[in-house]
């Protein structure tokens, strides 16, 4: 039983900016949509309560025609804080997101992204501001995320990016789908199970 073995070293796609600090997992997917036994269909529920209000659809970027083909989500600070629900990255992924670029991320959220093969890329606050402006001005422009060289190319910008090094390695070596990798240590696991004082 091995992991997916899909190596993720670079990614190209259009960007969708979702502005705001501290966007929590209840915003990304409200709890009522978690009453499901599978993740299918969650894409529709992504950002639901900010995409829809009593008057119908809002002008949230996920509703705008120009961003329907976007696959790279641009965000600000502390994105994904709150609950551990994997429903959050699952909903984004099923909407079409393949990578997230932002100033900073909550830990459980970024771990969850990694285990789905979604790179979580950090850039400086000034840079994310520039990227967001550019994505708003030219929505159909492609961004290239190069995970090997840790650079982002977007129109005129070439920006240095950062990633958690373990997450980056896991993506580049195709070991982000962790079960297989973990199972390789079967004997050590059994030994620890026996030896722990509880």
């Amino acid at each position: 039983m091995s992991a997916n073995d899909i190596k993720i070293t670079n990614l190209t796609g259009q960007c969708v900016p979702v502005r705001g600090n501290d966007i929590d997992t209840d915003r990304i997917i409200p709890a009522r949509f978690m009453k499901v036994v599978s993740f299918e269909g969650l894409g529709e529920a992504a950002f639901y309560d900010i995409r829809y209000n009593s008057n119908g659809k809002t002008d949230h970027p996920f509703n705008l025609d120009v961003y329907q083909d976007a696959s790279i989500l641009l965000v600000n600070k502390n994105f994904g804080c709150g609950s551990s629900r994997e429903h959050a990255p699952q909903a984004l992924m099923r909407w079409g997101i393949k990578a997230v670029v932002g100033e900073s991320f909550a830990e459980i959220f970024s771990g969850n992204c990694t285990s789905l093969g979604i790179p979580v890329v950090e850039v400086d606050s000034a840079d994310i501001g520039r990227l967001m402006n550019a994505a708003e001005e030219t929505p159909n422009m492609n961004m290239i995320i190069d995970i090997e060289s840790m650079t982002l190319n977007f129109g005129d910008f070439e920006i240095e990016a950062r990633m958690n090094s373990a997450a980056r390695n896991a993506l580049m070596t195709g070991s982000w789908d962790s079960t297989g990798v973990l199972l390789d240590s079967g004997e050590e696991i059994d030994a620890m199970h026996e030896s722990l004082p509880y």
Partner: protein
Amino acid sequence: MGRNLFNKVWDLHRVKTLDSGLDQLFIGLHLIHEVTSPQAFSMIKERRLKVRYPERTYATVDHIVPTLNQSRPFEDELAEKMMLALEENTVSNGISLFDADNENQGIVHIIGPELGLTRPGMTIACGDSHTSTHGAFGSIALGVGTSQIRDILATQTIAVSKPKVRRIQVTGKPGPGVTAKDIILKIISELGVNGGIGYAYEYAGPAIRALSMEERMTICNMSIEGGARVGYVNPDETTFEYLRGRRFAPEGEAFDKAVEYWKRIASDEDAEYDDVYSLDISSLSPMVTWGINPGQAVSIDDNLPRLTDLDEGSADVAAKAYEHMGFQEGSQILGMPVDVVFIGSCTNGRISDLRAAAAVVEGRKLAEGVRGLVVPGSKHVAMQAEREGLPGVFISAGFEWRNAGCSMCLAMNPDKLKGRELCASSSNRNFIGRQGSPEGRTMLMSPQMAAAAAVSGKIVDVRELMGGEK
């Protein structure tokens, strides 16, 4: 230099460091609930894997269970479907389940400790961010996502990066009416909701030592609200006494032997930390949140911050918070009228919380127009409360007394705010929409402060209701 508990326990459970640089960490105790586990079971089934050590996983139901009528099938078909999935998955994999009709059922972070499943020196994981609660016992307790639940079921391990450790040194004696909830709200308001990213928090110092286990759990519970995935307190006599005689705790000689281990893994006197933060709580007042994240909190006697006094990032979020809450910068929080009061959750749904709230409510009535809900955190909490006559106190004041569950903490069951209702809540999250209405508003506070709001119909300083005169 000595070592801290976190590093000792981590090293003891590290199977190896993986090529990616992540550590492979053995999870000694795995807790699951109905919401985040079904997909994990599907994943292992798809891959034809089996649950490696079913005896290390325990399941309960808490998030979606109705707290009014728990008879099956549940009225909500989706909730019923999730229950069936959990029953199926636990039975077919040989995992213990505390079902809605089992006397051990309750919120996962309440039952682990009260059953003695949660003990010092363990690694504990659960598909729920408030798993940090269990750190109160001196364990490393982590919230995980569904893919990691799959990994734990299949391998009893996860791939995880090791955080740094920040010691939060708390000194001073709290005044009357000031609780563990106020201490943690203060810490988060000082360090920020993302101040703990990349850290485990060790809560230490005389003020923490002086707390009961239940109070320590309240503090560790909200670590994640400050961005720290793990929060813990070193085990001591208070911990050992709490655990003695609990259903799943070791007995007799085995208990004494366990205590030896528990003492050994506590942080050494001269332990090293990556960072230290100190807080004196001598002059702390009850805290309430006014915004849309748990860091937006003030002392009850302070005014709401002015946007111009905040740095750029927090001013943005504060502006959004004022817009959502309908509050004015610079105004008082005292006197704000409330519509709903919720007392419960894994933060403050234990027996000591219900006692404290009941002491405020006793001899008073729910203010007119206010809806009050008291939801015990577990069946054992409910039973103990009944022995002490607490439901009577709440019911005769006009509160609804419910069955155990998460209830209006996240509103996945029928308990929800309506429209723009403002709720004084003893739970842990005030995110927009958290309590079931996208326009609903939440103010977090201690259970006694929530009780005081309930009987006053507005935010008041609970200290003014204390001291006998009613």
